[in-house]
């Protein structure tokens, strides 16, 4: 027997559904604008713990975003597995989990290249 969801639970389902994409969007905008700014005015680029400092900032930003998405994904995954949640609630939880997984992958792959490439070289 499923039970009706409260207004708070419904709101949390929306948040869970959109958490991954929104976290990525914030990460993407912040990271890109940061690089555009940092690479224009901060020459020469200092190294911190073996990485150019803009790269280090991106790495930290990537880790923070991944943690946030993981938290949201864990939350929706938990909902998805519950049997007494109405069908639409489980659907939203499933969609939220899938979106979190996809956007975690995108954030990870976006953050990786700074480990291998000099961040501020202007190409081509």
């Amino acid at each position: 027997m499923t039970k009706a969801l409260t207004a708070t639970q419904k709101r949390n389902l929306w948040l869970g559904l959109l958490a991954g994409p929104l976290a990525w969007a914030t990460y993407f905008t912040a990271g890109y604008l940061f690089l555009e700014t940092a690479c224009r005015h901060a020459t020469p680029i200092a190294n911190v713990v073996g990485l150019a400092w803009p790269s280090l900032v991106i790495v930290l930003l990537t880790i923070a975003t991944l943690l946030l998405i993981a938290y949201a994904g864990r939350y929706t995954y938990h909902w998805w597995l519950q049997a007494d949640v109405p069908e639409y609630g489980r659907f939203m939880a499933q969609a939220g989990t899938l979106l979190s997984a996809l956007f975690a992958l995108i954030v990870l792959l976006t953050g990786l290249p700074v480990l291998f490439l000099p961040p501020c070289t202007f190409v081509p």
Partner: protein
Amino acid sequence: MEVTREERPNIQTSIVPEGQTPVTAGTTAHQALERVWDDPPGFIGRLCALQNDTLGKRIMGTAFAFFLIGGLLSLFMRLQLAIPENDLLGPDTYNQFFTMHGSTMMYLFAVPMLEGFTILILPFLLGSREMPFPRLGVFSYFTFLFGGILFYTSFLFGSAPDAGWFAYTPLSGPEFSPGLGMDFWLLALSVAEIGAIAAGVEIIIAILKMRAPGMTISRMPLFAWATLVMAFSILFAFTPLIVGSLLLELDRQFGTRFFDPTAGGSTLLWQHLFWIFGHPEVYIQFVPAAGMVSMIVPVFARRPAAAYPFVATSLVAIGFISFGLWVHHMFTVGLPQAAMTFFAVASILIALPSGVQVFAWMATIWAGRPVWKTPFFFVVGSLIIFILGGITGVMVGSPPFDWQVHDSFFVVAHFHYVLVGGVTFPIFAALYYWLPKFSGKLLNETLGRWHFWLLFIGFNLTFFPMHIAGIQGMARRVYTYPADMGLDLANLIATGGTFLQAAGILVFLANLVYSHYKGEAAGNNPWSADSLEWATTSPPPNYGFAVMPIVRSRHPLWEQAELHQGNERVEKLVHALSLWPTKWRAALITSAQDARPEEVFRVAGPSIWPFAAAVTMTVIFTAEVFRLHLLTLVGVLGLVISIIGWHWPEKAPTTAEEEAAFAREHGIPVYANGSRAVSRSAMLLTILLLAIALSSFLFSYFYIRIEHSEWPPAGIAEPPALLLPAVAAAILLASGAAMAWAQRAIEQNRRRRLQIRLAIAFALGIAALAVQLYDYSQLPFDWQGHAYGSLFYVLGGFAILWLLTALIMNGMIQFWAWQRRYSARHRWTVENAALYWFAMTAGWLITFATLYLSPHLT
């Protein structure tokens, strides 16, 4: 034409006996309902007509006419390119033709066509009676029509736009395009874009709030998911383009310097603003087309769509990721390497959710037993072409490859494979599939096959050779090419293919005419389809559904023997709504997630004002093309009057007692004077739109700012004085408090206090405006000397305009409050105006903090 049982053995879940797909119930109030939902007669009536099927068909018809014109232009271009060193068109005309072809197909065909389709079928698909803002639909249609006509009148002045559909600065700026051509491009298309945004707003609300009871978010047809994503993307993408167009037009007419690097501006800023729109634009077209395919594939594969949650999810994912790709159009401009990888990763990974769609369609076909009718041919053709375009898309998503083929015919081949495969073919599939519902006549199958094969073969002949020509070095946007470069054969084949495609389109037109006169009757459900629109007659009655369906499945017509069974209370409600009210247009609001009935509200009826608003809007933009600023002012005045007339409250068609009786009986409120949920959603979307516009302005500000090491630039200005803007901001904050206080008054039903407090907020708003304007009058720089000044005036101007609209709204509310139209029960208009006022205050604070405070901080 009924599909027989042998052809649909795979619907294992179906409990509906063959040939008896359920139909919606009738009502004894049929005639009264038919009358109240009908469009008014006569010529004026046609300008007021607002039924979703009338508007949908109009938008689609107009978009198709633009498709034919755009196609005709491409025939001439291909003739020009058929042989090397040809001089049929010459460079100037060729520039105009490719600009007009691209702009027409993107702005005047694909987006309106898909929005028109959505407006046409959405209410039937969702089991509701109408779109939430039919008048906005009217406005949207006429702005689109007038914008398109204005765009093409440029040919009559011999100055068609010729800077490409992306209109790069400085080529499109005042120095290198001094004629009227670019003004036509910027202003006429802005009119059409405003129409697109208007339609987007109502599509979002229709999908989220106006579904049949029981159609939970997990039972929504995939087309609804797709158009929801499309509509949100339109809001987020078209707004930056309108802002960019405004800035460029200001550069061209009023001497601002946004895109002029010699005065601190940035040409790259235009590329950013354009492509923040331009790339999502591709997905704005692909996503709804994918939604169409997702509706058609299961019907012809004779089984439910595979992987529904994955498909719905990936539509949402595509909507988001499509906003993280724009710089891949700018890979060759010179970017920090790490920033470039951001866009490369997103460009390549968007293939994942797109691939999920394709694999889900293939799985559905694989597991089903396909019935090969014309719509299905077009779907399969679309799959083949789109997959090829998607693969070359992944290739050009990689910067090193992109540097090689950028601006070559390889890219032309790539995006035609994506757009024709991903958009045009699905649109034709959808026309064959859905038109019979609205015309009552099936299109001819034989002609349909001819249409398909001519188009499919012609398309591949045209565009496949372009991949090779592009890799061999053939540049796009150049009117000819030298002989003996090995490009001759590929070009000749391409030109031949274009004419095959044209023949295909002619066959389609013949099919339309043929079926109009001799088409086979369609019946309710010619394809034995699963979604609600097929439960009505073809063509459907004015009111759509007399008794609203109650949905218990993703495939109601396959899995529900009866369409009006459900929870006892809801059953009683939908039957009651078929009998009352019959004197006004009642529609049901349901909750976004679980589609529970929430309220009954009155949908607006026919009015001439939306047409007037579209006309005056067009007057404004046309006057600006020809630099008739006085006429612009007349247009603005007319627009304000039209909008006030549009929203003028009508006399309540019910009494409070009637509403209360219905509410007692059925447990949900009735708002014949305007819905709370719908008007609140519309206000939130309006605010979202303004927030996106503000973000675009702020992006422009900071983008130009980071190109300068000193800000304000030395010799242009000193960091601005803070006192007066701080005073203005404080006064405006106080006005916000007064507005909140006014809202409190009407909650407590204190009408007198409401009037006083609204007046206080109004006066404080005026005071803030006066202080800020005084400060502007003291500025030691103007908007023409440097981009810094341009930004200062235009960003501030945006906030001031926002305040002016809030003042007008406040004035209207005061007038109606004085007429005692508001009470604790009817207070939504006041609440919405207050919300708008708060948002305006926040926008003001952010804008002026940016202009005055940020130079002190850096």
